[in-house]
């Protein structure tokens, strides 16, 4: 039986002094190697759940466990996130003043490995996401699909256990969206990286090993 990588227990999140409920007693279990989908309409609390899972936001109630330990506890280690979680966002959040290769290398500033090793990792990932030929290109010269590939390579560079992807296909046309989903699927299957993805895409259902649907902060 697969081990649980991350688990929420009755997690709730309230905003504006409790007047807005973003998450309402959410319980999920993401197993190691899962391609986990979080679906639901806009404002249903999908992104909030992802942020809470990544430790970017704290739950108002309930608990989260990562690899069997309370997330709040493991987050006290300042190097936890860089070593365990990779993020991919809808808006990519790439640095325009850096080229493709430099953007991918950005998280490695925090990690003590040789320059040679850093370049080997980055070049390998750029090849994996199919953008090695544009390694020295400026971000502004890339298409939306290419930008998301760079963001995925950046998320993978620290060899995290889990990737949290927030609407990674939201800014892409259907063709590019499918290619990116296919890429995530390969990363999940071939590299064994657990993926938790927030998405609207119906087509994504085909790739998920399990998924939940949120409505007004509650799992349906």
């Amino acid at each position, binding site marked *: 039986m697969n081990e649980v990588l991350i688990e929420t227990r009755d997690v709730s999140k309230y905003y504006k002094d409790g007047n807005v409920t973003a998450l309402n007693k959410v319980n999920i279990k993401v197993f190691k190697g899962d391609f986990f989908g979080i679906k639901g309409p806009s404002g249903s609390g999908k*992104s909030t759940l992802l*942020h809470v899972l*990544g430790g*970017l*936001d704290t739950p108002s109630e309930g608990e989260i466990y990562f690899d069997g330990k309370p997330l709040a506890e493991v987050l006290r280690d*300042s*190097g*936890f*996130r*860089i*070593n365990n*979680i*990779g*993020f991919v*966002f*809808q*808006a990519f*959040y790439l*640095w325009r*003043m*850096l080229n493709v*290769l*430099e953007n991918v*290398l*950005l*998280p*490695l*500033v*925090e990690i003590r490995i040789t320059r040679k090793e*850093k370049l080997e990792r980055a070049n390998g990932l750029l090849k994996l996401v199919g953008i090695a030929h544009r390694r020295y290109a400026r971000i502004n010269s890339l298409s939306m699909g290419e930008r998301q590939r760079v963001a995925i390579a*950046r*998320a993978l560079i*620290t060899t995290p256990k889990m990737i949290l992807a*927030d609407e990674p296909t939201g800014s892409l046309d259907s063709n590019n969206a499918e290619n990116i989903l296919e890429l995530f699927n390969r990363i999940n299957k071939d590299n064994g990286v657990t993926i938790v993805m927030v998405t609207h895409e119906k087509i994504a259902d085909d790739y998920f090993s399990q998924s939940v649907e949120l409505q007004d902060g509650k799992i349906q």
Partner: protein
Amino acid sequence: MNLQTIVLRNILNRKSRTTLTVLGVSVSIAAFVALTGITRNLERTLKTTYESRGTDLIVMEKGIVDILSSSISGSYLEKIKSVPGVEDVTPILFGFYTFNLMQYVLIYGWEKGSYLFEEIRITGRPPQNPNEAMVGGLAANRLHKKIGDEIAMKGVKLSVVGTFQSKSLLEDGAVVMLLERLQEIRQTPGKVTAFNIKVRSNGAPGNYKEAGRAIDEVQERIEVLFPDLEVKNVQTFMSSNTPLFIILGFTWAVSVIAFIIVILGIVNTMTTSVLERTEEIGILRAIGWRNIKIIYMVLYESLIIGLLGGIVGIVLGYVIMNVLASRPQLEGFMSRSYDWGFILLVAGISGILGLVSGLYPAMKAISIEPIRVLRHE
């Protein structure tokens, strides 16, 4: 790809603002360099005047703030000579005279046979009679005088019989005549400005401790014997030199203001830069950059701005100092030498100012919560 690359890209990405900030910093640093440099130069010039001649003690009128105003009777000469431990003593009279509206020249009256005539390189000969004078190399250039020429002071004409080179810039820019002649010209017969004293040291050469003790003993004896006179060793004389002290105080006051301007300039630029990069910094924090790394990034940037401003400021400051040193009013009081120790000190101060200025923006940067950036998505 490392932190330095990211910092340099940040700086280069905002060229105009970085350039303007660096210029702002450099103007303040230049003001500090020029003012402090001038003061240090004056201090050094004055110190060399005494130290290069082996003078250990200076005897002057008691209670005056400025040695130029000192006036004491020359009759003390023999009495001071007889104080145990005094190797040599020479009376000296001096003051500033203007040969035209812009040029001030220091005029010395030295006693015939004074030890002050030693340790200078004389071309021609020293003055032997009241109608003769010798001119320092710098003064000769400024006054366009050479051996055989005449100089006129208060209607008295003196023949230039020699020129001399001194280690002291102050002396090099001076005219020297016999003491009695200057007393006559100034209408202060029998009066001198001060006595310069060489103390006999019984210790081995280079035994500074023993020499220092001998100087202290002679100083004490003179103070006891002549309570109406003030005796100072060269070090005390420098530190209690009121005009220099006032200039030093003014210099530091202006420097503090200049440093505050530097700090405010860099804080302003770096805070704006951090606020503009809220998204970038928020994402760095989201992907796992630790706070300390973000702090390093901001401090590194402000350090570079401080150092760049410092380097440009040092160059600018020395340009200002050299321009001032070439002005007729200051020629002869300031050398154009470069003090590498001082240059390194200023570079260090600029770096520290840069780092201090980066603290607030750095704290601002780590207060950026990634979730704030992501909620805008």
